């Protein structure tokens, strides 16, 4: 078997990013759209850690920590918005939230 290189991690990260993007673009349930965003952010982190490991430079891991901080803030605010939305519209389907649609 071949040893694992940075390219393996890049390919895995790209696959995870694409799966997350499919989730964001095709699902109707807002909760699952938020989960797909977490998948995308994790794909970014895999990339950062792979290069951090390949270059033996810890800066990539610092960036990953900041990305995780962002993910936490985004999830907290996003779920708060979702609760407010459900209270007002009684739905969590993204395509039924079309007040601004012409």
């Amino acid at each position, binding site marked *: 078997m071949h040893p694992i290189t940075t390219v393996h991690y890049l390919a895995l990260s790209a696959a995870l990013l694409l799966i997350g993007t499919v989730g964001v673009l095709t699902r109707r*349930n807002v909760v699952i759209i938020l989960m797909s965003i977490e998948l995308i952010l994790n794909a970014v982190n895999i990339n950062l850690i*792979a290069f951090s490991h390949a270059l033996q430079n810890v800066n990539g891991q610092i960036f990953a920590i900041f990305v995780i901080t962002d993910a936490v803030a985004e999830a907290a605010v996003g779920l708060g918005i979702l609760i407010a939305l459900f209270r007002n519209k009684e739905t969590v389907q993204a395509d039924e939230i079309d007040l601004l649609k012409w």
Partner: protein
Amino acid sequence: MLTDTILFYIFALLVLGGAVLTITRHSAMHAAISLIVSLLGVAGLYLLQQAEFLFAVQIVLYVGGIMLLFLFVIMLVNLDQAAKERQFNKQWLVALVAVAAVGAQVAYFIHAGLDSFHFAAPLVAGTPAGLGNTEQIADTLFGEYLLPFEIASVLLLVAVVGSVAMAKKRI
């Protein structure tokens, strides 16, 4: 080296399998559990690459914190009706084509740049011997990245205030 290879493929299977289940399940609760599997796989990949601190952060913060938040909201919001309805929107075919186009581009760029990913031997001499991963991160985070670190705390404060303001019945 062989163990590393086998572990990588096991974790990759966990990550991708969990991700695919996350975006295809009807029930939001099943999707959340699949997402936990995926996040644990990512944590394993961090451990494989000697990022022990991030491994701990991933498990404590993602699996322990963010997923708990998701589970709370799933239980708070009534999703039974949504699980019975159509799961994918009308634009799913266009979305798949667009994602396939992006995937082809990424695959092409990774393939075209294959030779540039052979890095020189790691600069192990540059890092002081015996300094663990957590110490290295602390040195860099509280030295070079002190200002971004403080700004991140402001971001978290804004997020706390924002989420409370959003979820409150009347302000």
